[in-house]
């Protein structure tokens, strides 16, 4: 007699909060790769801080930060190959940056100026970057999920060893397009990595109001494939899970759902005030598990890094960000005529 079909999902954790590795697990990741991940996580954090300030100063209209979730998108994107499709939701700047999306182009998109690759057409943080296989961001939730399935399905049909990663929050798992995307992926065994940033809040709506499921990872069972739960604040755990999922996908093993369990330390966006719906205590608890601080401790413990190097990094990145903002801010808006271009091929 079956009492429960579901095994309680054990969350994969590799780095301890004190910056050491959990016993018996050696990270299968080079120091170069780790440092690259760390640097990009710091970059995202610093960019977010600067851009939120800019919005408060009225210099850009809107911004979406990802404070506390940097490992989920940086470490995951780092585990992919350049030809893999990245299909973002809108809270994964680090994935784009580590893929080579120029910071200047990102900032131009925030200003909506004529150096924006997407010609000032959408709200800030709704970018696209073809050269990096980063697909276009829209505002409706979960619509990107079937796109990622289609992209990876096409690659499979064409016999290419390529996968797609699609990002979304736990809120998106309530949308029909999540169900539909997962279902198609399961039926057609598409090389798709479903990466759910379970950051506990969809604007003000908490996890328990989003689903009665204990975890997001277990939802994969309903679609006939594997779900994995990882500590989303653990860069190595995220990296490893995606690397394994990619390996599986590109060798005919089909899709994987990865739940990166994390917390949205900041607001949903600059239009939100989380103090209206959650306690400072809850946030403080998660700040203690900061993914950047944890990885920094590990890197220093492993002798790959130092406080001195960290200070220099922060200085260099902040200078780069300020210079980029200054350059982008002086670029004018696109011309009126551009409003009527790109509706169809041939203008």
């Amino acid at each position, binding site marked *: 007699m079956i009492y429960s079909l579901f095994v309680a999902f054990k969350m994969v954790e590799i780095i301890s909060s004190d910056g050491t590795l959990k016993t018996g697990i050696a990270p299968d990741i080079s120091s170069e790769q780790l440092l690259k991940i760390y640097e990009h996580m710091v970059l995202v954090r610093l960019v977010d801080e600067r851009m939120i300030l800019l919005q408060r100063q009225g210099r850009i209209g809107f911004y979406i930060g990802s404070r506390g979730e940097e490992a989920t998108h940086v470490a995951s994107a780092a585990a992919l190959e350049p030809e893999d499709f990245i299909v973002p939701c809108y809270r994964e700047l680090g994935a784009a940056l580590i893929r080579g999306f120029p910071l200047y182009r990102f900032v131009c998109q925030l200003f909506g100026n004529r150096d924006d690759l997407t010609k000032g057409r959408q709200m800030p943080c709704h970018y696209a970057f073809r050269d990096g296989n980063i697909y276009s961001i829209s505002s409706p939730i979960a*619509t990107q999920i079937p796109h990622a399935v289609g992209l990876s399905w096409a690659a499979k049909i064409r016999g290419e060893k390529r996968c797609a990663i699609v990002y979304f929050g736990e809120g998106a798992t309530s949308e029909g397009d999540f169900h539909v995307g997962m279902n198609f992926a399961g039926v057609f065994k598409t090389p798709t990595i479903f990466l759910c940033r379970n950051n506990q809040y969809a604007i003000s709506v908490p996890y328990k109001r989003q689903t009665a499921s204990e975890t997001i990872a277990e939802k994969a069972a309903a679609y006939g494939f594997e779900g994995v739960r990882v500590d989303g604040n653990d860069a190595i755990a995220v990296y490893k899970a995606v690397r394994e999922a990619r390996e599986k996908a590109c060798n005919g093993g089909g899709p994987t759902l990865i739940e990166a369990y994390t917390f949205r330390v900041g607001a949903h966006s600059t239009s939100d005030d989380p103090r209206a719906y959650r306690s400072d205590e809850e946030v403080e608890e998660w700040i203690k598990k900061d993914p950047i601080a944890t990885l920094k401790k590990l890197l220093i413990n492993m002798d790959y890094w130092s406080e001195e190097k960290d200070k220099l990094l922060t200085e260099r990145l902040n200078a780069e960000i300020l210079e980029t903002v200054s350059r982008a801010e002086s670029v004018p808006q696109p011309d009126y005529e551009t409003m009527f271009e790109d509706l169809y091929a041939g203008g």
Partner: protein
Amino acid sequence: MALMNIIQAVNNALHLEMESDGRVIVMGEDVGKFGGVFRATAGLQEKFGEDRCIDTPLAESGIIGTAIGMALYGLRPVAEIQFADFVYPAFDQIVNEAAKYRYRSGGMFSCPLTIRMPYGGGIKGGHYHSQSPEAYFVHTAGLKVVIPSDPYEAKGLLISSIRDEDPVVFMEPKRIYRSVKSDVPEGEYTIPLGKSRLVKEGRDVTIITYGAMVHIAVEAAMKSEEEGIDIEVIDLRTLKPLDLETIMESVKKTRRAVVVHEAPRTCGFGAEISALIHENAMLFLEAPVARVTGYDTPFPYALEHKYLPDAERILTAVSDVMNF
């Protein structure tokens, strides 16, 4: 040359395009093994395999959403929505995603996707197998909307739609899927999108229409000859992009226009045609543009033939504009 009906013409177009372009994929519910509930995709899976003619799960948003992904990759998916009435779960994907992808990505990406759907009434289909939702798609920038009226038209327009770089909503008039036959070249040919067709030349009134209604309009034109009224009939073929030039040339000549469509009256495509004619040819008109349309009700089952425009209703409108 072969005498074909619309189903055969559509099937022929799909066979030819799948043969000549390995990027073309057909997908939808029941399209593969079964060959489609109307048999439009018969033989494709047998000939091209399961990876190119795909039976999908029952989810319109999934069919279109994954087709968008395939189009982004560089394939040419031809997705089928089993009946136009069922397109709505995919509406978000069509209107918010496919239609806007090129524009919002600054031209970096595009969606060369064709969405086929049988539309229209006359088959005792009631509310949910008879709808004509073309207006919603014409209203959305970034889409093209194509509606053939006979087999020759269907094949040429479908081939053009599949080859088009933009998302095309291709609506097939199912009422005449089998009843209308025309001589169709067996090889490939295209009919350009955005160009309407003069079906019958006339002097007194212009009827502007599309799909199954073209035949009803021609029937009305034949009858009106007995009254000595000479009607010109234009088959739009493409609702978007619209061939305004042909419409204006005709209306400036006849000075009277009647638009005919099955879709409900309010905000139907006829409203747009009427507005355009008034804006561009006001001083040429002898009468306001008349519209003969479906009523502003859900599509009825028992009273279907009272709902659908017929020759009599068209002739009443013709008489109205003649005697204004």
